[in-house]
């Protein structure tokens, strides 16, 4: 039996941490929200040097042909650092779409970025302006698309658009969204973990009534519950990735992971905000990046209600 991450997976995650940890991701996010994408695209390029966008691109097109579990590991780290850009759509979804091999090749090189809308469950294309390729997935029909109208997300780093179809390019497989849903779940776990870590740091440093507020039991217990939630969401995400990697397309574990990861991350976000107090309720503190991203991702790529229904109606099997 094999469940835990391999040395390679752990070191790939560590390489992403080493790249993004010291980088000014917060500055890139501020720029991205204002439509100045240069810093964010520079980060994209550096992640491409590590092989991130080409993870699920077959080797014949310049990718690394990595597994869904590799994808989950990477997206958890990206969620932890909160990088701006259409990573879920480009890294997790695009390789599953019936798109031109040339696009996949560009993707693996880091020179293409893909934005996808898939109404009714994911009607808004993220970062369509910053993307090099835009697609509209209606049912299983995939069309190239153009921006029809811009919309504003609760998360300012997610620049949304409604797309209009231009030309049909192919028919997608039945379970085309499995991996982007998995990736969103992994991203949520990473974001939730960051919110927890930031908050543990805050309550250890912040003093009131002559002691660190982390000594108060109400604070301790709230954070313990956050930890419990994340500790159980993460293995469900990885279990779903194992299942996808073994060919169990359409497995109920994927929607289950999205539901639980959303719950865990949202609990982390609410707790983080509450325990930071007023400073948490500002855009000045970086914390807002994760609080708002978590809320946005809970609704993206299938709401909790949608995925719960899939869990109950899904096919037998793990």
């Amino acid at each position: 039996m094999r469940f835990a991450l391999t040395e390679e997976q752990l070191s790939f995650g560590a390489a992403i941490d080493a790249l993004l940890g010291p980088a000014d991701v917060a500055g890139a996010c501020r720029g991205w929200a204002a439509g100045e994408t240069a810093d964010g695209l520079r980060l994209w390029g550096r992640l491409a040097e590590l092989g991130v966008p080409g993870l699920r691109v077959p080797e014949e097109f310049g990718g690394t042909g990595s597994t869904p579990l590799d994808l989950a590991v990477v997206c958890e780290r990206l969620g932890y650092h909160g990088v701006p850009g259409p990573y879920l759509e480009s890294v997790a979804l695009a390789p599953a779409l019936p798109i031109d091999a040339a696009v996949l090749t560009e993707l693996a090189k880091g020179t293409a970025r893909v934005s996808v809308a898939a109404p009714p469950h994911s009607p808004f294309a993220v970062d369509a302006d910053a993307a090099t390729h835009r697609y509209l997935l209606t049912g299983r029909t995939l069309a190239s698309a153009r921006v029809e109208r811009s919309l504003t997300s609760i998360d300012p780093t997610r620049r949304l658009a409604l797309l209009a179809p231009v030309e049909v390019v192919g028919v997608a497989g039945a379970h085309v969204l499995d991996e982007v849903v998995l990736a969103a779940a992994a991203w949520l776990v990473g974001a939730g973990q960051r919110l927890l870590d930031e908050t543990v740091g805050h309550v250890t440093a912040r003093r009131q009534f002559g002691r660190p507020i982390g000594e108060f039991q109400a604070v301790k217990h709230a954070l313990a519950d956050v930890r419990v939630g994340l500790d159980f969401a993460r293995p469900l995400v990885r279990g779903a990735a194992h299942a996808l990697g073994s060919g169990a397309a359409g497995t109920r574990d994927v929607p289950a992971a999205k539901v639980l990861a959303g719950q865990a991350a949202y609990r982390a976000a609410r707790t983080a905000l509450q325990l930071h107090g007023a400073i948490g309720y500002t855009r000045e503190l970086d914390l807002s990046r994760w609080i708002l991203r978590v809320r946005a991702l809970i609704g993206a790529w299938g709401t909790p209600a949608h995925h719960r229904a899939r869990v109950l109606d899904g096919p037998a099997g793990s």
Partner: protein
Amino acid sequence: MTNGPVFLGDPDGLGDPDYFGRAAPPRGDVAGLAFTDAEEAFRLEARQWLRAHAPGRLPSMDTPEGARAHRAWERELAAARWSVVAWPPEYGGRDASVVEWVLFEEEYYAAGAPTRISQNGISLLAPILFTHGTAEQRDRLLPAMGDGRTVWAQAWSEPEAGSDLAGLRSRATRDEGRGGWVLTGQKTWSSRAPFADAAFGLFRTDHEAARHSAHSGLTYFLFPLDAPGVTVRPIAQLDGDPGFAEIFLDDVFVPDRDVLGGVGDGWRVAMSTAGNERGLSLRAPGRFLAAADRLLGLWHDRGADPALRDRVADAWIGAQAYRFYTWDVVDRGGAGAEGSVNKLFWSELDVALHETALDVLGPEQELAGAWTDDYLFALAGPIYAGTNEIQRTIVAERVLGLPRGNDRRARG
């Protein structure tokens, strides 16, 4: 309150058609985890035997009739070497790996097999006998534990020592002449004690040491419940059956051979029991997986009320998360303080799952039966094995590293 796995059974629940015999959508085996051929073969052998032999729901083990039936089932399990699969063969086991043990538990509960009357012994005491016990103790105690001849009760809590277990007052006084110790005091919430044969627990052997630390000077003792000076007063639990008891000890002699671990080393020894109780050995995922699948079947059979859909789904999702969490822990090789994380999750999942089942039953939820039994059983989860409040503090301090503060006596 640190009583052990209690089972609040009810004979009226026997053959409840809403509980058994309905088809829940099969959950299936987990995919992609690269089980070895040996592991798959083990699972299949367990599945086949259990499906052929599991008796289904027995009367509550906390009744004379139920205790007899559960002991008989343990004998049947032991005769086929399924009662203690992880133990060495010389004690009736199969030397099963942890992976195989978890697979066995999944199959056990999927087959609807009864809760284990031997659980205190095989899950909590046996691991300590293997790590801290002597060869003589293992040879003497394990065979009868493994086949249900000796049922063990816990004797942790006292009237003044519940969550703050180190506050216990029961004492053991040295008796050099007879080569042993004399126990006096009172234990309470002792799970299984009304129908058990023997008990294990902590007693204070050195009062001087307690001045320095409440954890010092404690010793781990084993004692028979029919020894002279032992009085067991059964206590009816929430369901009316005596799942636990008070134990009064009036000058109960215990020979040296029934000291487990070193004299004065009882706290360290006992904490390894607590770890077992909170962690995997008490609650393998099989039980929750089976319950969640039954809930799903019940919800479908009762018309799939959309108002309850989300809660039913969450129960299934929680059980599946617990399953993968377990595989992760097994593959990483143990949990440590994470046992508290684990205990918080399963105990709250169990309550939520059974609350949902009762709501699916609508007004019939009031009727005593298998689902109300299991609901009452679940309600004990957040209390025993260290209350969930204690667990949250452990998670905050030992897992998250939050400051302890100085408003409490130092702990362990």
